[in-house]
Structures are given as C-alpha cells and as structure tokens.
C-alpha cells in the first residue's frame, strides 16, 4: 500500500519532486522552486479549480514551504480548504494550515469558526483533524472560543478524541495557564481513563501542573505509584510494549512526575522507593529504551528524598553507563553523575578516569557535558585546573552561544573560588581576550574593582604588586589586534589609575600607549571615553607630583579631535582634561587624588556650607528658595531625585559643584550617558534656599531633550556668576573637574563596592601542576573531593594515606605506562563481555537473521533486478542522485567511501541488504524485520513498479533512496 500517491499526484507534481531530487546545488533547487511558485501563483487563482486539483496545489505549497520558500500567497486557499465538507479536502486543508501558520497569524481568526463546527462533527475523524489544528493554531485570544467544546470532548466515546482533547487542553495551559485552571479536576479524572493512551497523554498536562505547584498534587502520589506499578507489571495491553519493555514512554513520564512530587518530601518519597527500586532492577540495560528508563530512575532517585539503597543502585547504573562504549550512554552517565554528586560528592571519585576520558573525547557533545559536570564539582582546590581547561576549550570553539556560556561559567567560578588575585586577573585577562564581547559588562567592572580594592584589609605591598602586574600584563596584551571593547575599557582604566603608580613607567610612555589604544579603536566611543579619562588621570598625577607635563603630540591631536567630536560625552571629557592640565598642583591633587577610586564619596545634600552665602543674599533682598514640590513642573524633578540616593554627610569637595560661568566657551548639551554621571551635580541646588526661582531657568535653558540635561545647564549658569565673584578662571576650572572626578569615582567604584564581594581570598594555592597525564589531571580534579574527609587539607602533595581506592593513588603516583595499564586492565575486557553494549551485540545478531534469509532475498532480487533494468528510461532521477553523490558535490557529503561501499551493495540494497548500516538499531528491530519479510517481497515489487512508472530506475546509482530505513 502506501506508495501510490494518496492524493493522486499529477505528473507535474511528480516531475517537480523529481527535478528537486535531481538538483545538484541549492541554487538550482531554489530556481526550480521559484519557478514552481510562479506557476502556483497563477494556477491557484484560476476559477473553478476541481477539488482534486486544488488539493494538489495545496500540497505543492506545503512542499515549497518545506523547502524553505515563502508560500504565504496560498495560505488563504489552505484556509478555505478547511471549510470544505469533504473529509479528504478538510484533512488536507488542516494539515496545510497547521504547517503554514503560527499561532499568531492573522488568518487564524478565519479558521476558528470552522474548527468550532468540526469539533461538533459526528465523524470522529473530523473531530480529530480539528483537534490537531486546535493544538497548533489556537492562541490565547481564541482559546475561549473552543474551550467548552474541547472540554466536552474529554468525554467522547472514541479514545483517540479524548486523547487529543487532553493534549489540546495541555496546549492551552501552556499558552495561558489561567484559561484552564478550573479544569484541573478533568485531568485528574482522565488519569483513570480506561484507555492507556488517554491516561498516558494526561500525564503531560499533569506534569506541567505539578511542576508549577507540587503541593496541590501530593494526594496523587499513591495513584501514580500504583499506575507505575501496574505498568511495570505488564498490566497494560501488549500493544504498548516497546522492544519488550512494558509501555516505557509512560513509565518515563511517571518517573518524571514522581521526581517532582518526591523532591524534598520524605513522606512522599518513601512511597516511591519500592517501585523505583523494582524498575531499576527490572530494566533491561541492553536496549536503548531500557537504559532510557534506567536513566530516568537515576534522575528520580537523585531528586527525591535520598534513600541509601536506591542511591547505591543508581551509582551502579551510572558506573555501567560510564564504562559502556556507547557515547550515548557515556553522555547520560556523565549527566547522571552530575545529578548524584549533589547528594553524595564521593561518587564522582570512582569514575574520575572515565570522566577524564570523556573530557578528552573528540566528541564535542560529550566534552561539553563533561564540562558541565566539572562546573558542578568545582571547589577551591580544583578551580585552577578546571577553569584552565574550560578556557582552553573556549578558545578552541567558534560557537558563540556556547562560548558565552562557558565564558560566564569561567567568570563565575573564578569569582567564587579564586585562590589568588593574581590568578584571578590572569584568568580574567584570558576570558576577556577571547570572549570579551560575549560576557556581561558587569564582569569588566568587577575586574576593575578587584584591581582597585586588592586584597582588601591585607597589606598594601601585595596590592601594589598586584596592580603593577596588572599594568604590566595589560601593556603586554594591548598590542594584540582585535581586543574586545570591554577589555580595552578595563585596560584604559587600569593604565590611567595605576600606569605610573610604581614609577616603573614614565607618564609619556603610558600616555603614548593609551593614545595608541584610542587611535587603534577610533570607532569605539566607549573606549575613547575611557582613554581620555585615563589620560587625564595620568596627567593629574604628574602635576600633583610636581612634574611638568609635556603632552605628547599624539595625545594632543587625540584630544583636539575629541574637542570637536560628535559625541558630547567625549567632548566634555576632552574639555575637562584640557582645563585640568592648566591647573596648579594643589588644585589638581584635590580634584584627582592618587588611588582614590575606592573611596566613597560623601555628598552633603543640604549644602550647608552655603548657608552663610544664602543668608547674605537673602539679607540683600533675594527671593527665598521655593521648594520644588511647590513649583510647576515639579514632578519630573522629584522623579529625578528618587533615582539618586546620595548619602548625606559632610561636605569636603562640594564647592566643586559650583560651576564657573563661560570659562569654557560653548558648553555642549550633556548627553544622557554623561548625564547619569553628572546627575548629582545639579541635584543639591534645589535643597538650598536660593534667590532665583528655578522654574523659569529650567525652561529657558532648554537645549531640547532630557530634563536632567536641562537642569544641569540652568544650574551652571546660575551658579557660575554668583558663587565666587572673585574666582579666577583657574579655580573655577578646578571646580569643574572636581565635579568630573567625583563623577568618575561614583561611576566605577561606588557602584561596585556597594556589592559585597564574595570571592574567597584564601591564598591556598593548589600545588599540583596540570600535567597532561590523565592521572594527574584526575588527581587535581578529584583530589579535592576526598580532601575534607580523608586527609588534612594542608598536606596536598603528600602521598595520600591509604585513601579510598587503591587504584586511584596508584594511578596518581605511577608513571604514564603504569597508569595506563592500571586504567586499562579493569575496564575494557570484562565490559565487552558482560555489560552488553547494545550496539555491538545487536550488530552481531542483526547480521545473522539476514544471512539466514538470503535465499529469500535472492529470489526477490531475481525478480526485481531484471524487470527494472529492462525499463530504463532516459531522464532518471536516481542516476542523477547517484551522480551527485559520487562526484561529491553535495552539501555535507563527507565520505565518498561510504557512498561507494553502498554502491557496491547496490543490488542487495534494493532488496534487503545484509549489511545495511545498522548502527544503533535496537535488537528488537532485527527481530521484527524477519517477521515482516513476507510482505516485503511484494512491497519491493510494488515499489519497483511504481518507481518505473515514474521513470525512475532503481538499479541506477543512488541505492540509498531505496534502502529500508530500518535496515
């Protein structure tokens, strides 16, 4: 059956499929499809298209869309087809719309009505088709339109309908939980449905509901356990068996639910122990599905309240997985191990060598899983080894998604467990160098903070050493091309702050380097901003130290360029720098003190130092200050204040906020970026009683956009004139820059230091070298695990006294060859024999039945081959397929070898080949294949005939198309 096109494809359609098959390149395929789209566009709007023809057009649209092209012009026709009364058309229509439309498509509203009607149909097949569409198409808005009907269908006499209705409600719950909240009892009822299929599908919504709210479903534990028990005891109909396992998919779902219900609940867990234990004992570890159940059991055991006996068998199962040759099982083993170590960390130790093997496996999937495991078991003693490994791997991959993930894991581990600051900085440098653009910018700020704060309370010399080494490492690294922006920002900041601190480098050297960075990244405003601030700091330190500043020509030109920059932030920074450089040492020192980035800035919100001045002005008849909330336009101002909690305190530098008048010719409007830094500036003004009304100023000074900016300007003008009538340009300039300094300081350190840093600064350094040898790696990774329990933390390198596994210490101490032997001998040979790798065994068995059937095959082959060869026709799809695969032009054809080998098997492939690539096929398939041999001969003949009809010659070159998928 089957093979003859179900909707009677026309020659035209078959030709289309064929020509797509013949296409040798994606471009050619695209050409054909585009041509087809043009044809369909014309055809589909012709009047009076026969239904049959229309169905075909719709399927052709589906085909076009499947190949990645846009067939949206025809969607409406598919929608119309769902309105058809004919079941066949309706079914085609529903299939097409579920494939075409996402739930947010506009056309869906046109289908809802049809769906409503079809849900009421007497024919259960119509109802099923409509329910399929409901699952895919109904969105949050349309749920109410169909919900009552779907609920009614839960009681339908056909189990297929009940099942789909449950799944539809499940989908509704996913899309809009509130819409079905009142229907929970229905799910509970369906759990007791007579039909195992309906019961099984009920587990899906229940799983979701339970994961959202465990406590409301604790009463179901008993039911789930008893269902699981019945399933495991084969009480379900035989048809639910899969590869000799009783309803394994239902078992897995139930185990998942139990894992949720038992998590952190001793009482519930106790009810499950027996059945989970039984299933683990019964599960067949020679088949994939058996292992899938076993794996799910491990997940369950590690989630529920721990039970020593179950944990023990889970650990055994993990051991079996890890020792297996199959990568799939190793992968699951690593994953399961990651779950178990949360409960008892020592389990990992027995498997250290297996873990290292997985880490070094060429299979990327396995490697990543192993990194995940290592991430979970990181602690201070092994952090260096693990993070180094991770970074090495990070550098070697191109997958940005994973790179980001592993980079942030490195950062997280380094912050949490760093044995020393030195190491932390080096690690961060590496992460930044290779993935700087991918990690969170906060990480950069953390790094700056660490360098600034150093060891915290500990001695100063260590801190300055740390900074010197940071400066040195940055001077070294900064020459590299293509450093990420975030990293450059850190470099600039550190060079500015500490570049000249230890006197090793001259100011001109450092400033030269900084302007090099700025020049090399002239498109990055952030970096330039950091660079110019760094320059300012270096110059200020020089001036403060009483040295003369000779600005390098390149710095000069850099600053000049910024003075005219489009970015107002850069402009402002440049102007500020210019002014600072012109000041005297005393002023500069108070503007930008050495190494003050960590000091908190205290703000005198009341500006008490101005009281005298204010009083004087009032006495002279000035207007008193009107509190902001009494003025118009106050709302924006109060908003503004809320954002900035400035600790009140005494006033040190706060005359700084008095800004000079026009010593700087045209003060540019301050962009939002700098505005946030400068916000504290204007703020206090509103608290002082001042003689001028502020509101008019606000509106006058409008440069246009944000309010923060506006106020700032107003303040500047107002305060400039009247504060210091005698102020010389130089002092008022210094005031400006104090402001700036204050702002920068706030910018970095205060926000950073507000958060408590939780890096453990224990300088316990792990002594062990990262040796390429696995054993040593194992020791460094796992050694820590045993440490707390088995030996004093200090004696690290010392030979471990007696500890747990003999072979472990053996492995560590012995040379490479010894280690290898130790490792090798216990593993492979016995495994091969007793732990049944499903693949190898099933391969072995899979050959035999075929061989036995060779007689049958031969006769089959005898009938097919001559017939087909006699009918060779000119343009044939298959030979072209064969050509392409032989010439190796196609996408992703990696091995000619396998192609040619299958070509060699050509004849046997057409009939059922003995050596069909049998990788991974379970053993039951091999059992079932011989059983279905009978009809196969007939099938093969039928197919052959069909294929000849279509002008395809099976004896020609691409045998793969004819290869049974279940070989």
């Amino acid at each position, binding site marked *: 059956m*089957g093979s003859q096109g*179900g909707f009677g494809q026309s020659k035209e359609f*078959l030709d289309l*499929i064929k020509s797509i098959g013949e296409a040798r390149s994606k471009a050619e395929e695209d050409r054909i499809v585009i041509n087809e789209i043009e044809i369909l566009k014309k055809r589909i709007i012709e009047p009076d298209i026969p239904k049959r023809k229309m169905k075909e057009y719709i399927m052709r649209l*589906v085909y076009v869309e499947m190949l*990645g092209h846009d067939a949206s012009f025809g969607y409406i026709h598919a929608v119309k087809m769902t309105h058809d009364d*004919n079941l*066949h058309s309706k079914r085609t229509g529903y*299939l097409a719309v579920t*494939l075409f439309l996402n*739930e*947010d498509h506009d056309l869906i509203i046109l289908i809802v009505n049809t769906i409503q009607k079809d849900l009421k149909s007497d024919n259960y*097949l119509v109802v*099923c088709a409509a329910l399929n569409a409901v*699952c*895919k198409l109904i969105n949050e808005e349309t749920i109410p339109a169909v919900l009552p009907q779907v609920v009614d269908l839960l009681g339908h006499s056909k189990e297929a309908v009940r*099942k*789909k209705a449950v*799944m539809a409600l*499940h989908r509704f719950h996913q899309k809009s939980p509130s819409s079905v909240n009142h229907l929970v009892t229905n799910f509970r009822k369906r759990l007791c449905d007579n039909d195992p*299929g309906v019961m099984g599908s009920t587990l899906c919504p229940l799983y979701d509901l339970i994961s959202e709210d465990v406590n409301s479903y604790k009463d179901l534990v008993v039911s789930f356990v008893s269902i699981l028990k019945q399933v495991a005891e084969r009480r379900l109909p035989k*048809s*639910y068996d899969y590869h000799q396992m009783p309803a*394994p*998919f239902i078992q*897995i779902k139930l185990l998942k639910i139990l894992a949720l219900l038992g998590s952190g609940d001793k009482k519930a867990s106790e009810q499950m122990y027996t059945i989970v234990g039984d299933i683990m004992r019964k599960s067949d570890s020679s088949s*994939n*599905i058996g292992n*899938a159940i076993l794996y*799910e059991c491990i997940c369950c055991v590690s989630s529920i309240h721990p039970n020593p006996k179950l944990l023990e068998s889970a650990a055994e199962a993990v051991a079996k997985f890890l020792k297996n040759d199959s*990568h*799939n099982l*190793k*992968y699951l083993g690593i994953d399961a191990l990651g779950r178990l170590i949360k409960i008892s960390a020592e389990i990992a130790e027995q498997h250290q060598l297996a873990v290292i093997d997985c880490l070094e496996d060429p299979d*990327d*999937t396995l490697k990543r899983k192993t990194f995940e495991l290592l991430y979970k078991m990181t602690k201070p003693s092994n952090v260096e080894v693990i993070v180094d490994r991770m970074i090495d791997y990070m550098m070697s991959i191109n997958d940005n*998604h*994973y790179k980001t993930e592993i980079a942030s894991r490195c950062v997280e581990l380094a912050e949490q467990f760093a044995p020393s600051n030195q190491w932390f900085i080096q690690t961060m440098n590496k992460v930044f160098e290779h993935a700087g653009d991918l990690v969170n910018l906060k990480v950069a700020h953390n790094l700056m903070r660490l360098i600034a704060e150093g060891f915290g309370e500990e001695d100063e010399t260590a801190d300055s050493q740390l900074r010197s080494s940071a400066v040195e490492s940055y001077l070294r690294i900064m020459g590299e091309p293509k450093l990420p922006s975030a990293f450059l920002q850190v470099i600039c900041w550190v060079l500015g702050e500490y570049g000249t601190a230890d006197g090793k480098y001259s100011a001109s050297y450092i400033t030269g380097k900084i302007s090099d960075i700025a020049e090399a990244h002239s498109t990055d405003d952030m970096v330039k901003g950091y660079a110019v601030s760094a320059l300012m700091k270096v110059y200020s330190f020089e001036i403060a130290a009483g040295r003369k500043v000779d600005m390098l020509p390149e710095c000069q030109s850099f600053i000049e360029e910024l003075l005219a920059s489009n970015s107002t932030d850069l402009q402002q920074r440049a102007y500020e720098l210019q002014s600072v450089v012109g000041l005297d040492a005393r002023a500069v020192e108070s503007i930008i003190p050495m190494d003050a980035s960590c000091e908190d800035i205290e703000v005198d919100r009341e500006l008490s130092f101005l009281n005298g001045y204010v009083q004087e002005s009032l006495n002279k008849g000035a207007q008193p200050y009107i509190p902001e909330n009494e003025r118009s336009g106050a709302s924006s101002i109060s908003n503004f204040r809320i954002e900035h909690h400035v600790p009140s305190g005494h006033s040190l530098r706060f005359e700084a906020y008095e800004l000079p008048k026009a010593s700087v010719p045209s003060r540019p409007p301050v962009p939002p970026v700098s505005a946030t830094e400068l916000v504290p500036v204007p703020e206090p003004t509103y608290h002082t009683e001042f003689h001028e009304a502020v509101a008019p100023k606000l509106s006058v000074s409008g440069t246009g956009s944000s309010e923060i900016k506006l106020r700032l300007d107003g303040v500047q003008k107002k305060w400039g004139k009247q504060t210091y009538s005698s102020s010389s340009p130089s002092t008022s300039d210094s005031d400006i820059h104090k402001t700036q300094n204050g702002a920068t300081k706030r910018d970095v350190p205060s926000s950073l230091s507000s958060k408590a840093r939780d890096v453990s600064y224990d300088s316990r350094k792990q002594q062990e070298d990262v040796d390429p040898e696995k054993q040593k790696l194992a020791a460094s990774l796992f050694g820590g695990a045993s440490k707390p329990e088995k030996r004093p933390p200090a004696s690290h390198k010392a030979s471990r006294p007696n500890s747990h596994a003999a072979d472990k210490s053996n492995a560590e101490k012995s040379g490479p060859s010894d280690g290898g032997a130790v490792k090798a001998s216990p593993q492979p040979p016995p495994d091969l024999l007793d732990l049944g790798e499903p693949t190898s065994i099933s391969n072995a068995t899979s050959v035999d039945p075929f061989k036995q059937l060779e007689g049958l095959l031969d006769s089959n082959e005898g009938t097919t081959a001559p017939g087909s060869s006699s009918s060779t026709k000119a343009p044939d799809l298959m030979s072209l397929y064969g050509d392409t695969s032989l010439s190796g032009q*196609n*996408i*992703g054809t*990696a091995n000619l070898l396998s192609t040619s080998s299958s070509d060699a098997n050509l004849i046997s492939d057409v009939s*059922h080949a003995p050596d*069909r*690539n049998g990788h*991974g*096929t*379970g053993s039951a398939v091999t059992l079932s294949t011989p059983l*279905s041999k009978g*009809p196969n001969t007939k*099938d093969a003949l*039928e*197919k052959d005939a069909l294929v000849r009809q279509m002008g395809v010659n099976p004896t020609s070159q691409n045998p*793969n*198309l*004819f*290869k*049974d*998928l*279940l070989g």
Partner: protein
Amino acid sequence: QIHFVLLISRQGKVRLTKWYSPYTQKERTKVIRELSGMILTRGPKLCNFVEWRGYKVVYKRYASLYFCMCIDQEDNELEVLEIIHHFVEILDRYFGSVCELDLIFNFHKAYYILDELVIAGELQESSKKTVARLIAAQDSLVEAAKEEASSLSNIIAQATK
C-alpha cells in the same frame, strides 16, 4: 517537549519539517542550515545528541536519512531517540519496509502519521497498533470519500453538459 522534527538526507536535502514551536520561515531556513552543518558532519560513533543554542538536538541516521528532533535541556535524550525509532517503525509498518523514496513522494502521509504520534510537541500515543488503526481509518474514509467525490463530480459534470 519537542520543538521541531526534521528529516534531512545525507546530502542536506530537506525531506520533512514539522515545527511545534513558532519559527519564522527565515529562522527555519537558518535552523536547517545550521543543524545540517552540525549533524551531517558528525562521525558515526559519536553521541546521537548535539547541544545547540541551549537546546538539544537528538538525531539518528537511517540509511541515508537523518531524523532529528529538537528538545529541551532537561528532556531525556535516550527516550527521544526511541521516539524517533518508534516513528520509523510505524512508518516502516505503514509503507512496508519504508525507504527514503517513500517519504519523498508521500511526505503528506508522513505528516499524517507524525500527527498521530506527536501532538503539540509531546508524544501522544505510544502504541504502534493504535496509530496504525487510526491512520488506516482515515485512509479508508478518504478512499471512500474520494470515490464518492469523483462519482459526484462526474454526475455534476454530466448534468451540466
């Protein structure tokens, strides 16, 4: 939960796609390109799973056809591998030793079967027999309807002549 099902030939040709989560046509093309680049180049002895953009893709090769399913991080990979196999066994039973060519020319049937097996990204029926029965019911009804329709249209055609 299954996010999508892909059938790709070894040459990278798309044989069937089914999307359970919303993806635009552009994203679909990108996903297919990315995944076929990843999966078709993998060696035979490696894991049947690949991690991809925070999801996992479970794939299995049958003859020259790759069946791929994209699932969530916490799903049971081995189970999904068996769902794929379950699907192939059902196809095999339906087509009678299914081969790639069957799926090329009858992709709509493969869709119908998949719709009976997986719905809204979840396995809805694990009994091969039930699936087969439903599909057969639909097919026979369709056949009947087809005959009826063609005879009807004949009558109409003759009447309107």
